[in-house]
C-alpha cells in the first residue's frame, strides 16, 4: 500500500468515526424520565443466570423510539455502552467477554434508554441477570432442519461456539446423496469419541464412529446412542419408527415405535451385540443412557399393546407409556444384570422418556408426556429432575412451557442443561439453556444468543438435539462425507437372534426432528 493509499484510508476511517460520533444523540443519563418497569426486550434475557463464557446476549428493544441506548454493567470493570438508531442492540464481543470474566458470580445489568420526540429520553428499570461462576461447555452440536414431514432437502449437523456466534458444519446430508443424518452422540461431552448415524438409500444405513482420531463406518444406523464413559462401547436403540399425521394442531406430526430394542457395540472387538433383557418380544426398549461410572444403563421401556406389528398407527397408540428402567453392567466381564424399574409409568400416568444423568451422577433429567416415544412432537412434554440419591423427582417448573420441551443434555460440569423448546412459536424448536444448582433448582431458561437479535423471528429451520461438548469436533465434514460414501471397512457380526427384528429403514420412516 502506498503512502497515499494509507493516508486516504486513514482519512476515510477518521471521517466515518467522526460521523458516527456526531450522529449519536447525547443521552442525559441523570435527567431523563424514569419508567417504573423494565423495557421489553426480545429475546427475553431477564432474571436468568448466564454462563460467564456465553456470547453477547444481543437483543431488540420492544419500546417505541428513534434512538436507543443501553449500558451493560456489573460490579467490576467499565460498563459497555451501546448506542443504536434502531431497536437492535449488538454488544461488542471483546468488551462483553472481559466484563463477564471479571464478574463471575455477580449481577449483570442492562440499563435501557429510549428516545422519541414526544417523550424525550426515558430510562427504564434495569434488567438484571446473574453471571454464574461455572462456565458452560464451549460448543453446542445440533441438528439444523426445517420442520419435516416425508421429504427433505437438507439435513445438517452443525457445531456452534457458545462464546461467539461461529457456526461450523459437522455433516451435511447433501454430501451423501441427500441422506439423513441424525442421532449425534458424544462420550463424556467430548468429540474424541462420538458417533453420527446416517441413512442413505444409495450408501446404506450406517454409523460414523470417531474414536482416538480414527473414523470408521459401522454398517448399522445407531438410533438413540449412549457412549459408555470408558469410550470402549456404545449402547444404542434399534427402532421400527413410523410417522403419521393428525389433521389439526400446531404440531400435526406424530411418531410411534412399532417395536424397538437396545443393542451395544464393542469398539475393540468391532462387534454388535444384543442385550437379551432389553430385546423383549413384547416390550419396546429405547433411549439408553449411562450412569457416569458406567455401572448402570438407564433406558425406557413400554409394553407393546398391539398385535399387528405393521399397522400405522397401531391400535391404542395413544395408550403407550414408557417406564424408566435401569440395568447393571460390568464392562470387564461384559455381563448384564437384572433390569429394574426406576420410575413406573403406572405411578406417573405419563410416558417417561429421554433420561440423561448429570456427569456428577447426582441428578437424572427426563421428559414426561401424555403418551408415546417422541416428546418433541407432544406439546405436553415437560422436563423433570430426579435426585438419584433420594430417588424423588419434581417438575422443572421454571423451565417448562405450554409447548414441548425435550432433547436435553448436560454440560460436563453438571451445572448447565441445554434443551429444545417450542415455546417461542409452537412449531419451531429452539435451543435453550438453564443453570441447575447443586440442589437441582433450575434458573429461568434463555435462548441460544445470536448476533442478529431478530434471527429467530424469521428462521424457518429448527435447532434440534442440542449436545454440549468441551472442544470442537476434530473430523472435518468432508471426511465424514467420504466415510458415509465409502464401502464398509469394518464388517461387524450383528446377531440376529434377538427377539426384536432389526428393520431396514426407509426415507419415509425417518424421524422429523
Amino acid at each position, binding site marked *: 500500500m502506498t503512502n497515499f493509499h494509507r493516508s486516504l484510508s486513514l482519512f476515510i476511517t477518521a471521517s466515518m468515526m467522526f460521523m458516527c460520533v456526531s450522529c449519536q444523540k447525547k443521552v442525559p443519563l441523570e435527567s431523563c424520565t424514569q419508567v417504573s418497569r423494565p423495557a421489553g426486550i426480545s429475546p427475553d434475557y431477564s432474571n436468568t443466570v448466564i454462563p460467564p463464557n456465553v456470547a453477547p446476549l444481543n437483543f431488540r428493544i420492544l419500546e417505541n423510539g428513534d434512538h436507543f441506548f443501553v449500558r451493560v454493567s456489573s460490579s467490576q470493570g467499565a460498563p459497555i455502552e451501546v448506542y443504536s438508531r434502531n431497536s437492535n442492540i449488538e454488544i461488542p464481543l471483546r468488551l462483553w467477554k472481559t466484563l463477564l470474566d471479571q464478574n463471575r458470580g455477580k449481577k449483570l445489568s442492562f440499563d435501557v434508554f429510549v428516545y422519541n420526540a414526544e417523550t424525550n429520553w426515558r430510562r427504564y428499570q434495569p434488567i438484571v441477570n446473574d453471571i454464574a461462576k461455572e462456565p458452560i461447555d464451549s460448543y453446542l452440536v445440533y441438528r439444523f432442519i*426445517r*420442520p*419435516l*414431514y*416425508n*421429504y*427433505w*432437502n*437438507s*439435513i445438517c449437523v452443525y457445531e456452534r461456539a457458545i462464546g461467539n456466534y461461529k457456526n461450523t458444519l459437522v455433516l451435511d*446430508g447433501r454430501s451423501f*446423496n*441427500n*441422506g*439423513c443424518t441424525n442421532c449425534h452422540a458424544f462420550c463424556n461431552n467430548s468429540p474424541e469419541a462420538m458417533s453420527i448415524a446416517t*441413512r*442413505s*438409500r*444409495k450408501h446404506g444405513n450406517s454409523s460414523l464412529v470417531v474414536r482416538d482420531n480414527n473414523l470408521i463406518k459401522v454398517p448399522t444406523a445407531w438410533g438413540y446412542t449412549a457412549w459408555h464413559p470408558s469410550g470402549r462401547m456404545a449402547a444404542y436403540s434399534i427402532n421400527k419408527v413410523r410417522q*403419521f*399425521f*393428525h*389433521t*389439526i*394442531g*400446531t404440531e*400435526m406430526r*406424530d411418531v410411534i415405535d412399532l417395536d424397538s430394542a437396545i443393542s451395544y457395540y464393542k469398539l475393540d472387538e468391532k462387534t454388535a451385540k444384543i442385550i437379551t433383557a432389553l430385546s423383549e418380544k413384547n416390550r419396546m426398549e429405547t433411549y439408553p443412557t449411562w450412569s457416569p461410572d458406567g455401572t448402570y444403563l438407564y433406558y425406557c421401556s413400554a409394553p407393546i399393546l398391539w398385535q399387528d406389528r405393521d399397522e*400405522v*398407527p397401531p391400535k391404542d397408540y395413544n395408550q403407550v407409556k414408557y417406564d424408566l428402567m435401569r440395568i447393571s453392567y460390568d464392562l470387564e466381564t461384559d455381563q448384564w444384570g437384572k433390569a429394574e424399574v426406576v420410575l413406573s409409568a403406572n405411578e406417573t400416568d405419563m410416558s417417561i422418556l429421554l433420561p440423561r444423568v448429570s456427569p456428577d451422577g447426582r441428578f437424572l433429567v427426563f421428559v414426561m408426556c401424555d403418551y408415546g416415544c417422541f416428546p418433541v412432537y407432544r406439546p405436553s412434554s415437560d422436563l423433570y429432575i430426579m435426585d438419584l440419591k433420594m430417588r424423588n423427582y419434581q417438575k422443572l417448573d421454571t423451565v417448562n412451557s405450554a409447548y414441548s420441551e425435550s432433547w436435553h443434555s448436560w454440560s460436563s460440569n453438571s451445572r448447565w442443561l441445554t434443551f429444545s423448546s417450542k415455546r*417461542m*412459536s*409452537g*412449531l*419451531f424448536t429452539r435451543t435453550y439453556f438453564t443453570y441447575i444448582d447443586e440442589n437441582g433448582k433450575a434458573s429461568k431458561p434463555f435462548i441460544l444468543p445470536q448476533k442478529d437479535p*431478530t434471527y*429467530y*423471528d*424469521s*428462521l*424457518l429451520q429448527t435447532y434440534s438435539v442440542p449436545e454440549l461438548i468441551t472442544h470442537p469436533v476434530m473430523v472435518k465434514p468432508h471426511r465424514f462425507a467420504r466415510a458415509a460414501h465409502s464401502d464398509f471397512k469394518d464388517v461387524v457380526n450383528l446377531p440376529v437372534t434377538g427377539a426384536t427384528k432389526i428393520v431396514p429403514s426407509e*426415507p419415509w420412516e425417518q424421524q422429523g426432528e
Partner: protein
Amino acid sequence: MYKEEVTEVLQVGYYADKEDWQSLLEYVERHPGSQHNKFCNYDINRALYYTGRFGDEMFSYYQSPPALLLPTSLGSTSSNDSTGSPEVMYRYIRKVDLFMELGYLGTAKRYASEGLETGNGCPHMTKKLALICLAEEQNETAKVYLGALSKDLVYGRFARQLLQRLDRDPQLTDYEPVQRLRSIAFKRDYIGSYKMEHFFSQLLWRNPHNKMAFEYMMASYLLTGQVNKIAENISRLHEFGYKKIPRHYQEALLIYTDSQPQRGSGEKINLEGLSVSSEATQCYQNFIKEAMPLYMRKRDRRMTRQYLAKDFGNTYMFYMCEELPRFKNLKNFQGLVND
C-alpha cells in the same frame, strides 16, 4: 413430460395461482392437449368450480378420476432418498390450494411444508403456511413464516403489511382471506388415510354450507360411476341455492333411473322442486338410441367411440360408457385422501 407439456402445466398453474379462471379455460381451449395432463385436469376442475360450471361442463374436458384430488402416492417415484421426483413435489405444491379452499387446513399445511422443504424455501408455500397458521390462530408460528417472507422481493410487502395488521388486530377480524378459511376449517383430529367419500362427508358435516366440498363430492361420485350416490344427495341442492339441477347430475339421474330393475322407480327421488330438463332427457334418449345398437353389434370400439364422441363427447353418458371402464384402479382412487 415433454417440453410442451411442461409449458402447458406451468401456464395452467400460473393462471390457477392468479385465480384467473377464465384465462385458464381459454388457454385450455387453445391447447386442448393440455387437458390430458393430470395437473391441468386438476386445475381445470378448480376453474370450472369457480366459474360455476363444474356440474354442467366437467365432461366437456377430459377427466381422469385421480386428477380430482391428485393423490400424492399414486405412481410416485423418488429420484433420490429424500426429495422425491419433481413431479411428486409439484403435486404437493398444487394440492395445497385445493385443500385450503376445501377447508382441510391441516393437510394443506402438511403439503405446503413438503413444498417448502423440497422447494428449498419456496416463498409461495411460505405464504400459504402463514395464512393457514393465521386461520388456525397460531399467530406466533405465522409470524415466523411472515418474518421469513418479509425478506422476499416479491412477497415482502404483503408479509410486512400483514405483520403490521397482526400487531393492530391479532384476530384479523377484517381480513377476509383468513376469515374465509376460518369459516370452513375442518377442526376434528383424524389419523390415517380414508375414502374420498368419507373425506367429503366429514367436511360437509363440519360445514354443511361448504359448497365446494359438495360439488367435489358429487364430482367424485360421477367420476367413479356412483350414480346411486348422486340420486341420494340430489335433494341437498337446495341447501346450496341451486336454481336448476346441473346437467351432469341430470344425466346421472337418468342413468340411475334407467338402471333400476323397475323402471320409473327413479321418480321417487326427492328433487326438492327441481326437475330434470326435457333437453337432458332428449339427449339421454338420443344417446341410448344411437349407442345401444352400436354396442349390441359389437362394432369396432374405436369407430364407435369416434362416432359417439361427435354428438355426445361432452356428456356423462359418454364418460360412463367410454372413459370409465379404462380406469381400473378406482378402488385406490377412493381411498387415497390424506396419503
